[in-house]
Every structure is written in structure tokens, then in C-alpha cells.
């Protein structure tokens, strides 16, 4: 219980900081909005975009937008020296990582709230088909992506070229999230049932567990100076 409460407090603090830097979240949303419109224009008329094309576009936008959030996640703590403050806390090191995951997830859910309605108009995504199934997959995918992204962000935080290194490392490491999330979204939008995409959900869960195990063993060392 303690670790969850500590994670929540860290996430709350990050969200409070973000609320005082509203221009950052606005720029993230603006990036997502412009990407949707540009992709839609590139495909031609929105009505001609297939489910496969729309789904792929949606996840690509989610992926690139999430990078904006991960680059500030741990890097900001290093750049401002507040990482030392995190090292004074008596909580489990994992609470700090989970706090960052919660924060990134919250930011991405705000982006998703803007992105989804736009996707109906510009990417021809039909929300009426199994809306809650679709939402579940998107949320699971975003949580997975936030976990991997926050972990990679912590690995790269000490590097001088972290803004370059993060996307380089994130791209191959996110494929096990990206591919099943995209395939399951496609299946839901095609009207298939849970049994048809449960394999992809299991893959997402398995990858989450794998990153969790690596974090348990590695994160304390990463956090050390």
C-alpha cells in the first residue's frame, strides 16, 4: 500500500508542476492535433482511410507524442538537480518509477481525450463499434508505453545526448507494445470478439511483467549517482 501511495504523491507533484507549465502540455496536444490533420490530408479524403491505415496512424501519433512526455520525465530532475531530492526519500526506488509512469499515463490520457474525437473525423475511426473494448486496449497500450518510456527515460537521464538517445532506444523497445496494441485495436475496430484479440492483450501483459522484473532489479542502481 505504501508504494502505491508514494507513487501517487510523486505523480501528483509532477502533475502540479506540469499545471504550472501549461504551455508544455498545450504544445504536446498541438503536436498530436497537427499530426492527425497532416496524416489525414496525406491519405486523401478521411472517408477513404481504411481501418488498418487509421489504426496505424493513431498509434504512430500516440507513440511520437509520448516521446515528448518521456524526454522531460527524468531529464528534468537531472537538469534541475532535484534528482538528489528523490535520493533522500525513504520510499522504495520503484515508487519513484511508478510515480513517473502514473504521470506519463495521465498526460497521455489527456492527449487521448483530444485525439480520439479527432480520429473519428480525420482518421475514419468508428468509435461506435465496441467502444469500451477499444478504450481498454488504448489505455492498456498507453500504460505499457508509459512504463517502458519512463524506464528508458531513467536509463538515458545521465547522458548528455539524452534527447537523441531516448527515441533511439525507445523505438526498438516499444515494438513489443506497439505491434500487439495496434493489431488488437484493428481487430476491435473490425468488430472481432475478445477471444480474437486476447493473444495480443496477453503479449502486452507479458511485456509489462518483463519490464517490471527488470525494473525491480535495475532501477535502484540506475537512480544512484
Amino acid at each position, binding site marked *: 500500500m505504501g508504494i502505491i501511495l508514494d507513487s501517487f504523491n510523486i505523480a501528483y507533484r509532477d502533475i*502540479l508542476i506540469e499545471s504550472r507549465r501549461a504551455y508544455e502540455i498545450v504544445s504536446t496536444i498541438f503536436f498530436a492535433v497537427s499530426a492527425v490533420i497532416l496524416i489525414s490530408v496525406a491519405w486523401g479524403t478521411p472517408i477513404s482511410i481504411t481501418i488498418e491505415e487509421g489504426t496505424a496512424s493513431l498509434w504512430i501519433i500516440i507513440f511520437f507524442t509520448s516521446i515528448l512526455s518521456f524526454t522531460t520525465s527524468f531529464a528534468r530532475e537531472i537538469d534541475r538537480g532535484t534528482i*538528489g531530492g528523490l535520493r*533522500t526519500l525513504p*520510499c522504495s526506488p520503484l515508487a519513484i518509477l511508478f510515480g513517473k509512469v502514473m504521470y506519463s499515463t495521465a498526460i497521455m490520457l489527456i492527449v487521448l481525450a483530444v485525439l480520439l474525437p479527432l480520429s473519428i473525423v480525420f482518421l475514419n475511426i468508428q468509435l461506435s463499434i465496441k467502444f469500451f473494448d477499444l478504450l481498454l486496449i488504448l489505455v492498456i497500450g498507453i500504460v505499457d508505453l508509459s512504463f517502458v518510456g519512463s524506464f528508458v527515460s531513467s536509463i538515458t537521464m545521465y547522458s548528455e545526448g539524452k534527447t537523441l538517445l531516448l527515441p533511439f532506444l525507445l523505438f526498438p523497445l516499444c515494438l513489443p507494445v506497439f505491434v500487439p496494441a495496434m493489431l488488437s485495436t484493428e481487430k476491435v475496430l473490425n468488430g472481432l470478439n475478445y477471444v480474437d484479440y486476447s493473444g495480443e492483450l496477453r503479449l502486452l501483459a507479458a511485456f509489462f511483467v518483463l519490464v517490471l522484473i527488470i525494473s525491480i532489479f535495475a532501477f535502484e542502481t540506475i537512480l544512484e*549517482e
Partner: protein
Amino acid sequence: MFDYAVECKDVSKQYGTLRALRGVTINIEIGDIVAVSGHNGAGKSTFLKIVGTHISSSSGNVKVLGNDTTKDRSKVRRDIGFLGHTSFMYDELTVEENLRFYGVMFSIERPTLDKRIEEVIEYVNLERYRHTAAKKLSHGLRKRADIARVFIHSPKVLILDEPFSGLDEKSIKLLIDGFKSQIGKITMLISSHSFEMMNSVFNRTLMFSEGKILKNDRVA
């Protein structure tokens, strides 16, 4: 029961080929106020960071109030207040919000935390700035806010790395008076380049040179 506030046994730290600490063995008694001195790169900050659980030693063993800094890190951190070279305050949060965040992370209950925030803000004389964002504070005021943070969870051992850097004489005097009021209550390890103003506070001095303790004197 533990006999010492800090026990270091044959502690070494290596950064690649650089040996920052070389087999440091020292026991610091409860209530000691220790001046940690030495040239740049002598190993004093590394020593303080190891005791403060910010880094692990390459070899050797460190205990704070009987708890091992590697195995019981969480317990050690509850007993320690650490002030580093850089500020640990968050720019966008006010002084009070920063203190509240750290207090909550040390599991201090709401009514106790409210009272504690009042006390530490008064201690560093920052009443006027409690609702000011940390980024709007001058260097000296920010340092004082950081010192308030260090005291928020009533630590038993204080580790202060260069606490007076960037402070004017008045602020230094204010802090030293504060430290004097803590004599006998808590153990303090203070590193600085200039100790002239603090001679009346210390009862022990440690001088580091090339990763070793060169002098370990008790002040009468």
C-alpha cells in the same frame, strides 16, 4: 543499541580508475558536530554522499544509527537530513508546497506536518516567502528553503555539504545560531571551505586529503 551515529569501516569508492575514497575508517559519536574539510577532490563530498545513501561505496561498510546504508537504506534515510551542493526544491512549487511534498514522502501525518512546516519556515526566517515559487527566490533564500526541507522530518543526523555557499553574512549567522540550538540534540557533519565563523560550534574536525582522513581531531 548502537554506539555511534555514523560508523565507517574500511570504506572505499572508485570512479573508473579514480579512487575517490581509500579505506576510510571512522566512528562519529551521537551529538558530535563535525567539520569536514579538505581541498577540492579530497573526497569529502564522496564521503558525505556515501553516508547520506546517495551513492554506494565500492567496498567497506557504513552504518548510520546502527542501520546499514546498503541493506536498510529506507531506515537510514528517515534518520538523515541531506543538504547537497544543488537545491532540491522544485522551481514551479512554492516553498510550502515543496516542504509539504517532502513531508508527505516522509509519511508525516497532516496535522503534524502543518505544524512542522510552520516551525521550519520560522527557523529559517522565510515566513514572507512561504507562498512564493522556488524559482522566484534569490540564491540565498532558496538555500534557506532547502535547509528548511532538511529539517522537515526532524532528522537525527544532518549532512550539510557546503551549506554556506552563496549566503550573505547575516544568513550564515542565522544558520549558525540555529545549529548552535541543535547541539546535543542531533549529530551534524558539515563540509565547508571556510569554517572561521563556525569555530564555536564544532567539537570535532575531519580533514580529507587524496581520499583519506589526514586529521581527526577533537576540539576542546
